């Protein structure tokens, strides 16, 4: 694996340690989807650790259909100007020019996201070529390792975005965690076949068998709508939570956002989660994933 690092007298930028390091600092936090500068401000005030700038939240992408692309640079600039916390933005899978544009705009993290329409059904972006770090979605360990091999500095389990149904998020984080646990139980001569079955590089597979964890931070996403949902993800072993449509498609976004932040920090304290869950008003209406025809499932984009 190579790394596009830049040496200057002031130091080295774009190294894996620097890219992965920002995700380390986001741990225990909530990253919130926002579509306007006002929403970004509400998110920051509620305790978001970062915001994801996009034109439409996944629930609207789902409802309105059509091709979903990178956001307008003016919208991203407006959100960057409104907040001091890190700003992330989404590029289409394989669309390395959208990623180049986002890097030029000075966002802090790029999400190569299945929520947008893929631009390449074969290749993901070669993320080692960028100074800016990337987060990528994964439904299982093999997918996570392929993304890390391409240079992803952070992984989020995909869930099913824009549904408010947490069941796919649960499935994906459980799958990744249990596949990691299974690797640690294997003897060293079994890891070659494990790498073949996971369709992932042997070196990464051996590293995970030895350490019992991914070499990058693992957040979870896709369907988190309540404080209890966020705490569920944390108890299942996520390092933090992305909340997309769940906040600004609900009755009282500011209060719900703050409540999800509290429940993420005190994920193991049911009294705090109970208090945070009171009086939040209406949650997003949601769609049961089981009712979605397979072609409309975003998690199946990416491979």
């Amino acid at each position, binding site marked *: 694996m190579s790394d596009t690092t830049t040496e200057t007298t*002031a130091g080295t*930028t774009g190294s894996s340690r620097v890219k992965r390091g*920002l995700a380390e*600092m986001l741990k225990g936090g909530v990253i919130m989807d926002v579509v306007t500068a006002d929403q970004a401000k509400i998110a920051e005030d509620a305790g978001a650790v970062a915001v994801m700038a996009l034109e439409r939240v996944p629930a609207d992408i789902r409802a309105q259909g059509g091709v979903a692309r990178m956001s307008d640079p003016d919208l991203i600039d407006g959100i960057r100007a409104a907040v*001091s916390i890190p700003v992330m933005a989404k590029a289409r899978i394989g669309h390395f020019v959208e990623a180049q544009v986002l890097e030029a705009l000075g966002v802090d*993290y790029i999400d190569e996201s299945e929520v947008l329409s893929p631009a390449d059904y074969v290749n993901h972006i070669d993320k080692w070529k960028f100074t800016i770090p990337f987060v990528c979605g994964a439904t299982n360990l093999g997918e996570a390792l392929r993304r890390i091999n391409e240079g992803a500095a952070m992984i989020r389990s995909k869930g099913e975005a824009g549904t408010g149904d947490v069941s796919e998020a649960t499935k994906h984080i459980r799958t990744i965690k249990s596949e990691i646990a299974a690797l640690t139980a294997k003897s060293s001569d079994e890891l070659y076949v494990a790498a073949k079955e996971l369709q992932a590089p042997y070196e990464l597979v051996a590293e995970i068998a030895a350490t019992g964890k991914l070499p990058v931070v693992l957040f979870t996403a896709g369907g988190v709508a309540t404080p209890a949902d966020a705490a569920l993800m944390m108890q299942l072993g996520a390092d933090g939570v992305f909340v997309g449509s769940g906040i600004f498609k609900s009755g009282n976004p500011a209060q719900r956002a703050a409540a999800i932040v509290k429940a993420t920090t005190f994920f193991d304290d049911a009294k705090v989660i109970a208090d945070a869950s009171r009086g939040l008003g209406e949650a997003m209406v949601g769609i049961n994933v089981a009712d979605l025809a397979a072609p409309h499932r975003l998690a199946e984009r990416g491979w």
Partner: protein
Amino acid sequence: MTTRPVGVLALQGDFREHIEVLRALGAEAVGVRRPEELAEVGGLIIPGGESTVIDKLSRTFGLAEPLKAAIARGLPVWGTCAGLIMLADRISDGIEGQQTLGGLDIEVRRNAFGSQSASFEVDLEMPVLGDPPLHAVFIRAPVVEAVGAGVRVLAQLDDARIVAVEQGSLLGTSFHPEITGDYRFHEYFLDRVAAQ
């Protein structure tokens, strides 16, 4: 040697890394999220994370006032990155309503190097640690823009910007010794906790 554990503020950020380093160095380390947990510790690290979030959660869950009282009593506290911001008396570019615990007579600027693309790692001369230089990772890091008379500067970048300070029982660093594998600054902090 104190028998009280060393706490790491565990509201948000990379507290797990600090806890692992402290344990690797033989110290007893615990996460701190509640006032009663703070009362048990003989020293505290405030980790990297988002200062706006750590500020908000520390006030929401009733930790801010006990933390200020502990700092006033002389508890050894070390802040890294967001933790440095939390210990600063003044922030030059906080968000509206952002508060700090204070204690260090300094002014800090958040995200002083710009967006994530400008985050970097560098070897840093640190006289209190001797040779070799400490490898330091700066992630959307703050810098110290002004220091009061009682503040000792522990490290500066080549352009003279201040990135590590000490005042009384408080330490602050812009960077993250917990993610580099060189734990001499953690040892420096533990020595101060033990001397307390």
